[in-house]
C-alpha cells in the first residue's frame, strides 16, 4: 500500500486546519526573513524550499503537518502547496527519522565500486532494513541516488558531510564516532554560521 504521504488515516474528518503552535526561534526567524527578502516582491513562494530545509533542521530532522502549516503561514500560501513540495523532494522527511540519517549512494559508479557491500554490512550490523531506524533511535539507513562522488566511491552522506572512499572498516569507525558525538545530523550545519 502506498498511502505513505497520508500521515493520519481514519482520523475524524475536519474542515479546520490543524492547530498551529510551532514557531521558529528568533534566530531562525531572522534567517527565514533574510531568505524571503532575496526574491522579488510577490514571489516569496520561491523561499519555500530553503525554508523547509531550515524548518527540518530546527524541528528534529523531519516535517510534521504542523511544521508545514507554520511554513505555509510564513509565506502566506496554502498548506497543501507546502505538502505537495515537501513530499516531492527526496531530502525532506515527512516521517520522523533517527538522530543520524545515513544515506548510502547506490547508483552506477558507487555500485561498481562496492556500495552493495556497505549497505549489506550496515543492514546486518543494525539488524534493520533500508528505510528503518535502529531500536535506540540513533541511526536511520537510507539508500539514495547519485551524490556526485563517483570518483571517490563508495560513499555515504550524513547531514552535510560526505564520507568517501569507504571500506567496511571505515564505516564502522565512522558509525562509532557519530554515535559518541550524539548530535543530530543536519544538512544545514555548515550554513548555520553564514
Amino acid at each position, binding site marked *: 500500500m502506498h498511502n505513505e504521504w497520508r500521515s493520519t488515516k481514519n482520523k475524524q474528518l475536519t474542515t479546520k486546519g490543524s492547530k498551529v503552535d510551532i514557531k521558529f526561534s528568533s534566530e531562525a526567524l531572522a534567517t527565514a526573513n533574510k531568505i524571503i527578502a532575496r526574491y522579488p516582491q510577490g514571489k516569496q513562494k520561491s523561499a519555500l524550499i530553503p525554508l523547509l530545509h531550515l524548518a527540518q533542521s530546527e524541528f528534529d530532522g523531519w516535517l510534521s503537518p504542523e511544521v508545514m502549516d507554520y511554513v505555509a503561514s510564513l509565506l502566506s500560501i496554502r498548506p497543501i502547496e507546502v505538502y505537495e513540495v515537501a513530499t*516531492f523532494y527526496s531530502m525532506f522527511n515527512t516521517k520522523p527519522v533517527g538522530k543520524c540519517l545515513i544515506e548510502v549512494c547506490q547508483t552506477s559508479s558507487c555500485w561498481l565500486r562496492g556500495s552493495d557491500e556497505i549497505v549489506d554490512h550496515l543492514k546486518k550490523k543494525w539488524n534493520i532494513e533500508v528505510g528503518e531506524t535502529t531500536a535506540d533511535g540513533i541511526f536511520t539507513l537510507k539508500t539514495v541516488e547519485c551524490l556526485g562522488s563517483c570518483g571517490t566511491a563508495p560513499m555515504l552522506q550524513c547531514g552535510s558531510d560526505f564520507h568517501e572512499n569507504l571500506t567496511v572498516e571505515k564505516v564502522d569507525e565512522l558509525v562509532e564516532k557519530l554515535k559518541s558525538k550524539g548530535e543530530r545530523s543536519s544538512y544545514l550545519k555548515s550554513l548555520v554560521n553564514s
Partner: protein
Amino acid sequence: MGRKLLLEHINEPGIQTFDVYRKRGGYASVEKALKTMSPDAVTEEVKKSGLRGRGGAGFPAGMKWSFIDKKSDKPRYLVVNADESEPGTFKDRYLMEKIPHVLIEGMIVASFALGAKTSFIYIRGEYMYIVGILEKAIQEAYAKGFLGKNILGTDYSLDIYVHPGAGAYICGEETALLESLEGKRGNPRLKPPFPAVAGLYASPTVVNNVETIAAVVPIINIGGDEYAKIGIGKSTGTKLISASGHINKPGVYEIELGVPVDEFIYSDEYCGGIWKNRRLKAVVAGGSSVPILPADLILTTAKGEPRLMTYESLADGGFLTGTMLGSGGFIVMDEMTDIVKNLYTFARFYHHESCGQCSPCREGTGWMEKILHRLHHGHGKKEDIDILVDVAKKIEGNTICPLGDAAAWPVASAVRHFRKEFEAAAMAHSHAELVA
C-alpha cells in the same frame, strides 16, 4: 599536456579565496567586459568561441544567449544550473568546491551580456556544504566591489543568490529547475514557450550549466577565436571529464576536446588504465543517460577510426554504434561487470527520479526497473527482453521532457550490445545460478 583553462591554478593553496584568486588573474574578464565591451560584444565572443552547453545537451551557448527576449520590459535572469545529478558526473561539484570564484566571475560577465540584474545559482540540496563555500565567495566579491551596485564604477549592478534544491534529478531539466526555483514541484513545463521568452517568473531567462558559465572567463580573457582554436571541428575548447568506475585514477580531468578515448582511458596523465590489471568491457561516456558502448566500439568507431573525446566523434554511428559526450560523466566497466545489474541500477535511478507527470515515463520507468530486477534475480523470462526493449521504444520521444529518453537509451543500448548477457539472465532460475 593539454591546456588547462579552468583548472590551471586548482592546486594553489588558498585559490578558494578572493585574494589568491585575484592574484592569479581572477576577475580580469569582469574588468575587460564591463569596462571595454558592450553586452552584445560579449555574446559575440561566446558565439565565436563555439562553446557548447557543458551540462549534457551541448547546445551552442552563444546562440542560447542571443535568444533572450530583449524587447520585453520584464527583468531578465541568468540561472546557473548546479543541480548536477547525472550519475557519473561530479565535475561541477569539484569546480565549485575548489575554485568557486571562477563561477562567480563567469556569472558576472554572463549576466552583463544578458542584461540580468539578478542571477541565481540553483544548486542541488545534497551539495549543501558547497552552498556555504559559494556564499562566502559571493560575500568576498561584494566586499571587493565586483557585485552589488555600480560594479567597478560602471553603471552595471548585479546581485547573485544561491538557491538550494532538495533532492530531485528532474530539477536539472531547465524548466523543472525554474518551477523548483519558484517554490513548486519540479514538474517540467511544455516548450514552447522557451525560457528565453518566458522563464523564471514568466520573464526572459537563460539557464546554463556551471561549467558553461565558468568557461566564459577564459573565453573573454583569451578571446573567442583563440578558444575556438582548441579542439576539433564543432567541439571547441576544453571540457571537464568526471572519470569513475573501474579505473586506477578516478577524478576530474580537464581535457582539450579531441583527446583520443584510448589515451584518456589508458594514459597515466588521465585514468591510468583499468584497475586490478583487468580488461575493459564497457564504457558509459557521458553520464548514465547516454548509450553504453562495449570496449571495441568505445575505442574505435564502427568505421574503424579511433574515437576521440569530441561531440561528433562519440556520436559517430548514431545510436546503433555510437554514444554521446553528454555531461562528460565517464564511467568505465571492467570485464567482471554484470551489465544486467548495472542497467538495473540505472533503471532504478530513473524510476526514482521520474516526476510522474506524463504516463510513458511515470509507468514505463517503473516497468523497466521491475523487469530488470527480475532478470537480475533469476526470475526473468525470455519474453522479458523484447518487452524491455519495446517499453524503452514506446517511452522514447513521447514524453514531456528528455528524462524519458534518458531512461530509454541505456536500456536500448545495453540490450543491443550485450544481448547474450540478458538472455543468460532470462534463462537462469535464481540469482545464485547467475552469479556462479
